């Protein structure tokens, strides 16, 4: 078994399909023997290497229970992801990790959970959501609120349509703009994500919130949650920073006196709220 912290372990792309105009789903298989017992906590990330192009940090979007099989949701945002998007099943990539601190699934056990995802923020929350579904009886009410810019930007549409039929979870979708009539997708509202929280009944002392999305979303979501008297130490956010090494060395991802790559990327709001410019 290789040391997956410093040396990327080889993996093969086994599946690629587009989720939206600029975002695709990638399934990877880690090479046997290289990554025995690979496991992670939802919210953790890996450093994905695209040979000759470089490495980038990416949240694990699948359930932790899949062993050597990893699921990622990658937007074409920089030069490395652009090369990744040219790759096909069978092509080699490599993985370091998993890194960082994920969502506190142990602490959340026995409680209600509300997951709030904006745009690409659905990726780590999908991992968390799948984890909850696989351990359904250990958690109370599960709500997933997901907002995207427009219907065509909703990621994992088919999967969400299936989830919408389940009775043991609550799924609420919203889009900022309704540009076209969504064809065959799940039902969604029009409006900003924080709007979904309005009028919602929460058992404040028994609920955890997991939030992931762009910085602007955090600001209004936090205001909304705090307005509902949601306790600060029960709100968990996943922060995006420039994590180059993943192991607290390169110093690019510092937030306050934390390293996003080791202390985070998931933080409870009360730990980071005083840090200027954190969200």
């Amino acid at each position, binding site marked *: 078994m290789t040391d997956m912290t410093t040396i990327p372990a080889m993996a093969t792309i086994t599946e690629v399909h587009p989720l939206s105009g600029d975002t695709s789903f990638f399934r990877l298989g880690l090479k046997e023997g290289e990554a025995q017992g690979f496991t992670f906590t939802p919210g953790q990330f890996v450093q994905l290497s695209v040979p*000759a*192009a*470089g490495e980038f940090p990416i949240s694990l979007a699948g359930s932790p229970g899949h062993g050597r099989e990893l699921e990622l949701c990658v937007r074409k945002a920089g*030069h490395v992801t*652009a*090369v990744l998007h*040219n790759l096909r099943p069978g092509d080699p990539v490599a993985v370091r990790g998993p890194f960082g601190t994920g969502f506190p699934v142990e602490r959340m056990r026995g409680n209600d959970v509300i997951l709030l995802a904006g745009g690409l923020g659905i990726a780590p929350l999908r991992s968390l959501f799948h984890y909850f579904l696989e351990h359904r009886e250990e958690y109370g009410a599960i709500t997933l609120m997901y907002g995207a810019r427009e219907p065509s930007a909703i990621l994992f549409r088919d999967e969400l349509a299936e989830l919408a039929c389940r009775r043991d979870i609550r799924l609420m979708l919203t889009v900022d703009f309704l540009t076209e009539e969504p064809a065959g997708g799940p039902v969604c509202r029009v409006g900003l994500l924080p709007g979904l929280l309005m009028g919602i009944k929460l058992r404040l002392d028994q609920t955890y919130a997991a939030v992931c999305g762009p910085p602007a979303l955090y600001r209004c979501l936090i205001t909304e949650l705090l307005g509902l008297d949601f306790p600060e130490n029960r709100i968990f956010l996943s922060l995006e920073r420039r994590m180059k090494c993943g192991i607290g060395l390169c110093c690019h991802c510092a937030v306050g006196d934390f390293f996003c790559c080791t202390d985070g990327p998931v933080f409870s709001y009360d730990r980071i709220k005083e840090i200027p410019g954190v969200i």
Partner: protein
Amino acid sequence: MKKPTMAIAGLTACSGCQLTLLNCEAELPEVAGCFDLIFFPMGISGGDECASVDVAIVEGAVSTPDDLETLLHLRSRSRFLVAFGTCALWGGVAAMKNHESRTELTKIVYHDVAGEVLTFNPEPFHFFVTVDFAIPGCPPEKDELLALLSSLLRGSFPVFPIYPVCTECRNRENRCLLVEDNELCLGPLIQAGCGARCPAAGIVCEGCRGPVAEANVASEMELLMQKGFPREEIISRMRRFCPEWNYEQRH
């Protein structure tokens, strides 16, 4: 895998950038092996100037109607257009007098036939077309060109770090000509990549690679003026390779 097709050409320039490629002697066979050079008038006779290519690597500034036509033609038939060298990226040496009257300048040089001269102020590519990637330098560095070619083989562009010549200069443990010798060195303003070649040889940075992103121009001007250099002299030095600077820029 199909070899990427490539065109290499020059507009108003000295051909020095194209020569950089020919100077990669050790790597040339490999380059020739992995790219299909469709059009390269300086290096290969009889190229096809109409065929579409994956990448066009073009040097020079745009200063004649012919230049512009060539540039538009290359843009429309290439998937990626690379501005190759400081002239293509910033205007370069040819553009150093862009702030003066063109009519007067042509009169000085061409006297009676000045009226027949059809050239206009030399300008960089991005004034006219979308540029996909640029390599600065007068001439560009071999390493950066080879890194570009390697990336192109994989359908992408390389990432060059954004910092000024000073960074490379200090790393080489050079004597600082600006601080120690009070010389007019443009190192703090200029994009690195040359390995601080000139300062390592005791020559100030003349700025041939053009501005680094977020150059603190105003502070460098203040510093140089404190050292006794007149503003006009500093500006004229800065214009040598890049005609347009924002002299008030701090961030």
